[in-house]
């Protein structure tokens, strides 16, 4: 079994969201970077669990990023995974990134490719689906459970108002969200071991993005909270009914 786990670096969830150069770029000065939580907590941990069940499993991590992502990749390797591949390119749109990942996926003939539900910065939820199409593979979007029995996979995926259980044959692409696995903290042995795991750097292929960011903007500020005394909650109901007209 060969598993490819796609990871991405994102600003820390507490990072201040601000823009520069006339609101065309994210102001990344002083921002801490983390592994995108969906990639780290769910896809990567699930891949590691599958390897724990079947130690012959090989896990490769892949990311599209410049060298400043190396600490993030090492952190992911400290959790698990046998080696990592960094495609040496700055990020463009989802299509550009998916096309780069597809190239690596084709060369490695993986049985299973995991992505996270979305990145917490661009919230595209697009890489998994694009990658599956580029590779001509079945795709399970937003899995909340994933299991293997030989080369047959069962996945539970979220649907509006419930869940469904699907069965499919590998190879396949799966995007993971909460439920698939539980967050793990790397241990000392993992951190030490990660230093010597291979991190291959490859150059990107030529791809034209299909979309581009023109500008960013921040949402309008709230006017301020209207406080209702705790001994008169009926007043809140009146305001929601008469003023906000929502109930």
């Amino acid at each position, binding site marked *: 079994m060969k598993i490819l786990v796609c990871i991405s670096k994102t600003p820390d969830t507490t990072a201040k969201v601000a823009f520069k150069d006339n609101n065309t770029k994210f102001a990344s000065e002083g921002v801490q970077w983390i592994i995108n939580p969906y990639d780290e907590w769910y896809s990567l941990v699930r891949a590691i669990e599958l390897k724990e069940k079947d130690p012959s499993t090989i896990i490769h991590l892949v990311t599209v990023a410049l060298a400043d992502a190396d600490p993030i990749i090492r952190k992911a390797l400290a959790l698990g995974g046998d080696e990592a591949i960094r495609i040496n390119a700055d990020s463009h749109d*989802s*299509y550009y990134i998916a096309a780069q990942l597809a190239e690596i996926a084709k060369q490695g003939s993986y049985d299973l490719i995991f992505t996270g539900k979305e990145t917490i910065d661009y919230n595209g939820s697009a890489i998994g689906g694009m990658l599956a199409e580029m590779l001509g593979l079945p795709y399970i979007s937003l899995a909340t459970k994933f299991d293997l029995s030989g080369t047959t996979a069962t996945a539970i995926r979220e649907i509006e108002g419930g869940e469904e259980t699907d069965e499919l044959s590998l190879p396949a692409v799966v995007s993971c969200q909460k439920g698939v696995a539980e967050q793990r903290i790397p241990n000392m042995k993992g951190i030490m071991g990660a230093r010597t795991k291979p991190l291959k750097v490859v150059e990107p292929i030529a791809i034209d993005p299909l*979309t581009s960011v023109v500008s960013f903007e921040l949402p309008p500020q*709230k006017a301020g909270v209207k406080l209702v005394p705790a001994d008169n909650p009926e007043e809140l109901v009146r305001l929601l009914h008469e003023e906000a007209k929502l*109930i």
Partner: protein
Amino acid sequence: MSVLIFIDHSDGQIKKSSLEVLSYGAKLAAQTGSEAFGLLLGTVTEDLATLGKYGIKKVYQVNNETLNHMDTQQYTNLIAEAATQLTAKIILFSNNLTGKAIAPRLSAKLKAGLVSGASALPDTGNGFIVKKSVFSGKAFANISISTDIKIISLNPNSYHIESGSGTAEIVQLGLTVDAAKTKLLSTQKASGEVVLSEAEIVVSGGRGLKGPQNWGMIEELAKLLGAATACSRPVADEHWRPHNEHVGQTGLAIAPNLYIAIGISGAIQHLAGVNRSKVIVVINKDPEAPFFKAADYGIVGDAFEVVPKIIEAVKKLKAS
């Protein structure tokens, strides 16, 4: 040239989020001087002709019951084929769970630029620029699509449903349906509950509620208001509530008209997923809770005293 709108359904019913996209698509067609068509894969119990009231001229249907289960490859091939036959230049989805599964596949197949999570109509004055929410609701990005065919998925609850009069012509599309590579084994549905992503009102509880045994009042208030229930991350992590209720930066991002947060501190990661709500009400015993800064209405008080009184007041209101 046309605007093709994907119509999503389950249990024979068209989803509310698709009615939003139909309204959005009809408006966009008018804005770009083209016609809006709907596309439905599978079967529904509703009369498709009535969808004309949302401003679309025709509804194309691939009337095949096997399509009532979505397989991304099968759906993508059919939508791509329909889009080509109808020379669709703009293809629209809801950015719901189905849209998230298919729109990216279709984008790769047609090499058509995708903006997922749009929150407003595109600016077509000079180019084609779509506003979408990014950083889990902490900001917006304006994205330009440069390809001939464009795909947009619209965030649920970000465009109002507009209906007038009119009937749509129903046209059956005789497309070949390939065998699906994913097989549906079972479906588990929580019946009768309001779907969180589509809900207009959401009542949400945090760790301040102390334990799962105290959710009765949250559920009662939600039921009275026709609302969905949600929770903060630790509440789902501790299995007080199911995972699919977890909202925030690493859960579901929602934008209801009214979000009522009870015993939730308002951490930045929680706010990220809910701050697009139109009106936010916060009930928290700590006057310093950060959530008050993001709220429209608030009560500083003990949820266990305040919420039952709110329930009584809502009952009185509903009775009057």
